[in-house]
């Protein structure tokens, strides 16, 4: 009967904290927050660390961060959704980020992008149904001297063509 007296929000928080208690990654995250003295203005740094540990930011994780930094969950969620760098959905095993900055664009990044879309049958921002590959776009990774650039699993590859990109993807499949 007691549960009915507690609002759903608190219920969710309790669930999130239960979830956190058995997972070592939450401990690591907490140590990181401690390093920032649990300061509220370090929220973005903390979310960077959280994404590094978990790969993406699930709701329970955001609730945990909000609770530890004593911030309203709305603010943490608001920040996580504002910045492009944070993913709220799980990512594929491999990520392929096509740079669509101006220099890459005038040198044919759109052709690379189209070839990848046709091959993977997903749109930018999506992950293949088998969870293998996530196709993402970047606005400019500052590698304009070697345009068009594509980042495969964090490694920047210079002067990409549609063929080169497909060859790389085929290795993953």
């Amino acid at each position, binding site marked *: 009967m007691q549960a009915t007296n507690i609002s759903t929000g608190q219920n969710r928080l309790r669930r999130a904290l239960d979830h956190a208690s058995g997972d070592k990654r939450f401990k690591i995250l907490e140590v990181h927050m401690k390093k920032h003295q649990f300061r509220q203005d370090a929220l973005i*740094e903390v979310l*960077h660390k959280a994404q590094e540990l978990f790969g993406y930011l699930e709701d329970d994780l955001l609730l945990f961060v909000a609770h530890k930094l004593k911030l309203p969950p709305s603010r943490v969620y608001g920040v996580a959704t*504002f910045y492009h760098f944070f993913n709220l959905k799980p990512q594929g095993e491999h990520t392929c980020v096509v740079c669509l900055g*101006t220099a890459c664009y*005038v040198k044919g990044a759109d052709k690379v992008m189209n070839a990848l879309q046709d091959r993977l049958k997903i749109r930018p921002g999506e992950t293949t149904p088998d969870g293998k590959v996530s196709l993402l776009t970047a*606005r*400019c990774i*500052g590698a304009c*001297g070697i345009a068009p650039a594509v980042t495969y699993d964090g490694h920047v590859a*210079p002067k990409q063509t549609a063929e080169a990109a497909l060859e790389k993807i085929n290795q993953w499949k």
Partner: protein
Amino acid sequence: MQLDDLNAIAEKEKAAAKKVCLRTCMSAGCMSSQADVINKNLDAEVKARGLEGEVEVRRVGCMGFCGQGPLVGVDHDDGRHELFEFVKPEDAPAIVNSLKGGPCDVQRGDPQHPFFAKQVKIVRANGGIIDPESIEDYIAAGGYQALHQVLTEMKPAEVIEEITKSGLRGRGGAGYPTGLKWGTVAKSPGGKKYVVCNGDEGDPGAFMDRSVLESDPHLVLEGMAIAAYAVGADQGFLYVRAEYPLAISRLQIAIKQAKQLGLLGGGIFETPFIFNVDIRIGAGAFVCGEETALMASVEGKRGTPRPRPPFPAESGLWGCPTLINNVETFANIAPIIGRGADWYASFGTEKSKGTKVFALTGKITNNGLIEVPMGIPLRQIVEEMGGGAPDGRKIKSVQTGGPSGGCIPADFLDTPVDYESLTKLGSIMGSGGMVVMDDTTNMVEIARFYMEFCMDESCGKCIPCRAGTVQMHHLLEKIAQRKATLRDLIKLEELCDMVKNTSLCGLGQTAPNPVLSTLKFFRKEYEDLLQPDQFGPPGNGQPNPQSAPK
């Protein structure tokens, strides 16, 4: 740490110099083509031949010729310089062979090429020369001398006076006089003040700041420390894009090294001056390059701009006076102090002093970074240094200033590159991105591309930008797909005007610029795509007179 200690480090470093130096570029561009493996192989090769005594293998920052990377430079003991281009890891033995006059078929670059010869290096003087991860290298190149000079010989007001005299203007693009900004922060009442370095280089097609941070991080730190002393701040923040992991790691190393030597932290050079720097990592929002949005982001909030005034100089981070300058602005400070304002002011034009770093990209033969004196004609940059468009194509236009800038048609290539001249043409200096387009480029498509960018990056706080960019993008798509009529074009021009004049921050106010400038110079490309209107011509049948080419 005192001046003697600083000089001792420099002397020790110079004494350890070897006869020959093999420099491998370790910037993000060359690193993507296995520069680190090349460096390892060169090192192993030198050791295998027992040449460690006379040959140094050094990891350096950006040499600028990114399109020809990976690059390896050789400094011989007789003062000759060589440059190897498109180096592969397996080329290491041949390069080491060539030191002794052996055969070597690796492609050689020409260090006397106009691309290098026409440059004047102030900000990038150490780029490609020193190891960015070694503070000793920086000190040997004269680093931290300027900081010592201001702390021990100058009053804060004198520092500001010197910067004002140099005529330095904000290198983030707007060109606000740096000395004036510093003066405002220094005069603002309040105990706590902050210095912020804006390294959120979001313009697509620009990578000058990345290169400076990766190649010479201490130069930026020293500039920030001098600024902090001048305005009376004791805490600095370096805001860097998350897309630049290499720059972030090198800055972390640089801050740690500077702290160890007592060049950051408390009691710098045994004076009462205290200065600490924290890195703040962005999270992928273009709007955070706008100073009020950047401050919100540093405070860990959503990066949305707020109306100005109050300007950050009066009320910035946590309501305290805050000085915000761009990376390249800070990188200019130590050279100005070290060599004097008059020396600096001898470069450039009457109103735009000094040099500017540009990222020369797009349909151009020589891709890379250049630092040139202000006022250099655009033609010199594009044709002599850049070598024109590849494949015998003709250059159609040069885009400067990113999504806030405009396209300068080839007819205006003789324009001098300075703040006023570019503004007159409906473009802006911007942060320094220069994207060259050849005659195969469709200008309507380029305008659409930039509008899509602004639409995605609009933060959504103010309606003109949030809704206007979507509508403008829709109209541009309609035009590009040949589904639009003259009515749509008129509507587009009206929207441009509205968004430009009613948006809250620079992103919205400048979002229509690429459209307006392509309409001004390449109107025919738009008109060729229009369809006849089934309801007869709109209005008086005349296009909007405001946008007719002057």
